[in-house]
């Protein structure tokens, strides 16, 4: 599955969320990561994040796409990050 993660958390925890998310997904721009995950690693990612966020004030969103076939990704302005497997 293809997952887009966006988060809006207290500054005290942005680092923690970013560090954990980077193990699974690729950083795209501030507070946004995306990438291909298996069902299992998606679950692992969620439980990893659940451990560090404060559910009363932080917010983490996952957009889960079954396939990217019917999606389109358009960019306006600068490309800040993204997936590269040949680097």
């Amino acid at each position, binding site marked *: 599955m293809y997952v887009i993660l966006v988060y809006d958390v207290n500054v005290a925890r942005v680092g923690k969320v970013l*560090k954990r998310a*980077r*193990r*699974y*997904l*690729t*950083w795209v721009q501030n507070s946004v990561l995306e*990438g*291909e*995950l*298996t069902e299992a*690693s998606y679950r*692992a*990612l969620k439980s990893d994040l659940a451990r560090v966020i404060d559910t009363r004030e932080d917010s983490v969103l996952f957009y889960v796409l079954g396939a990217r076939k019917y999606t389109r990704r358009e960019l306006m302005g600068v490309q800040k990050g993204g997936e*590269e*497997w*040949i*680097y």
Partner: protein
Amino acid sequence: MQKTLYLFASGRLRRKDNTVCLESENATKYFPVASLRDIFVFGELDLNKKLFEFMEEQEIVLHFFGYYGNYVGSFYPREHYNSGYVILRQAEHYLDGARRLELARRFVEGALANILQILRYYQNRGKELAGSIESISRLLEGSLPACGRVEELMAVEGNAREYYYESFNVILDKSPFTMPGRSKRPPTDPLNALISFGNSLIYAKILTEIYKTHLDPRIGYLHSTNFRRFTLNLDLAEIFKPVLADRVLFHLLGKKMLDLKDFEQQGGAYLLRERGRRLYVETLEEKLQSTFHHRRLRRNVSYQTLLRLELYKIQKHLMGEQPYKPFVSRW
């Protein structure tokens, strides 16, 4: 779905925030470990033991290539699928001459059948290849069953490859690339350089897949098992070189994506330049990710998965569950 990371950039590769991070002069780049299968290193990297420990923990294989694109070696982490049973069966099939010959013959059969499939493809596209097909078929159907020793199998395979490589000139007519005959270590012309580069990638690819099974890569059947050398991946590569490496090669040259400028000469050796290597790797990866309908499994599988399935078939053969029959491409 796991990914392969190809690193052409140079810098320091390290474990950072529990993931893989490349610190180069102008940028710091993180790669998600969760979906990392193996890393192919082409650049000049600094790395330390901490990284190797991390790679072992995450079960990621690293393959290193030298400045000339030559294979240097692999970091093959501690086995995580241990099975004394499979190793014993592997050794048993190696030590018993008849059984070894049987498996070795299957590998050559698969290799020749896949080569023929390539040649037929180009024959259907109007290339004059009847002669080569005829010669190789004769080897496959006549000489191969008659072989009584592994050395003879090797010889038959070598002869078949000679015919095959000669036919490259027919397939690639009107292209600036010509095949004067196979040369390695070092390749003495661009086409040989391309073949060698592709083959070394296939060897490494299969090694990664072997790591993910119970098989021991040191015990091969067609290629003799000698001191500390991986050989099982070489056996399997015979089957997949035509299917993967050669198809990528014809794709790149047929579509004129590569030309002679992508090669450079160093002494008597020809090398693929970085642009060419990147392009090759990209095309190979596309091929590996592409899927087709697998008749037995009745589902779509990628070529990457196919490599693994082939290893499972060998494992079944060793355990006496089902005789091994090599993958032969039908299209």
